[in-house]
């Protein structure tokens, strides 16, 4: 099976060296088109005016925060259950990227909230607070890896944290329906299809796919780094013995 074949880090390194230039190229092309289209070729919104430009950097960042966390929780589960050696590497490598995108979602959202809602932040808003909790879970996860020296024990503890923290993901998604909040309800991932106009939807989707490829490229790069660091560590230990 493909997955078991990839459990061999050597084979994974070979494969990711072939795939990563493509993910990099796709990210650069899509983000180039996406940023140009968002900034120069979209009309102002009839209610929000030009502040709607923030949507093209806010929504993809928020999407990545949740997407990466879901992937991380999935990898953690695989790591715990099947002891797949690359699963822990994938989860560990993804975490700082997820934290970066989540921080971006919060910052750009805040800059959008001020002109649209009259405030940068609202503690009573379930979407905002659950998103902030996601950032803290990411940071806690990274801190836990750094706190435990033994990689096997660190992987196990971090995986448990990632799975417990996964409870926040549905809360973020449904927060806008469960509670009456400032944040608007979903306009893309909803029953009955997107409610957002094509003039905005197409560049927004290009940005989302571009962000996703950027993440995949950096994930592969960081996984290769992690494998190299583990190899360096075992070489050091072999020399010390």
């Amino acid at each position, binding site marked *: 099976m493909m997955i078991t074949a990839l459990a061999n880090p050597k084979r994974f390194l070979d494969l990711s060296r072939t795939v990563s230039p493509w993910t990099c190229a796709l990210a650069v092309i899509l983000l180039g088109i996406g940023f140009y289209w968002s*900034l120069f070729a979209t009309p102002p919104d009839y209610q929000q*005016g030009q502040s709607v430009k923030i949507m093209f950097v806010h929504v993809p960042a928020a999407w990545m925060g949740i997407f990466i966390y879901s992937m991380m929780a999935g990898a953690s589960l695989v790591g715990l259950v099947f002891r797949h050696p690359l699963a822990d590497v994938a989860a560990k490598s993804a975490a700082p990227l997820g934290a970066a995108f989540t921080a971006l979602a919060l910052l750009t959202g805040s800059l959008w909230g001020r002109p649209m809602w009259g405030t940068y932040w609202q503690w009573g808003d379930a979407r905002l607070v659950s998103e902030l909790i996601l950032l803290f879970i990411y940071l806690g996860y990274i801190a836990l890896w750094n706190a435990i020296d033994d990689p096997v024990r660190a992987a196990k503890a971090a995986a448990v944290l990632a799975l417990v923290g996964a409870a926040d993901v549905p809360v973020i998604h449904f927060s806008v329906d469960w509670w009456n909040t400032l944040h608007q309800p979903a306009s893309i991932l909803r029953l009955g299809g997107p409610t957002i106009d094509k003039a905005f939807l197409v560049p927004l989707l290009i940005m989302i796919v571009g962000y996703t490829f950027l993440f995949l490229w950096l994930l592969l790069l960081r996984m290769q780094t992690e494998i190299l660091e583990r190899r360096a560590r075992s070489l050091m230990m072999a*020399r010390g013995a």
Partner: protein
Amino acid sequence: MANFFAMGGYAVFVWPAYAVTFVVLIAAIVLSIQSYTQARRNVRQLEEEGSATEETR
């Protein structure tokens, strides 16, 4: 052009949002590449040292 930069009066919100996005994305790329080249250099060095000690034995 000045009209474009004014962003319909929302310039102080739109431009910082794009600026922080660029800074964070570029930092993520630079840091990931840096740690990769560093790790690769370390492993190469250790492997070379390892094979050198093999030869002296």
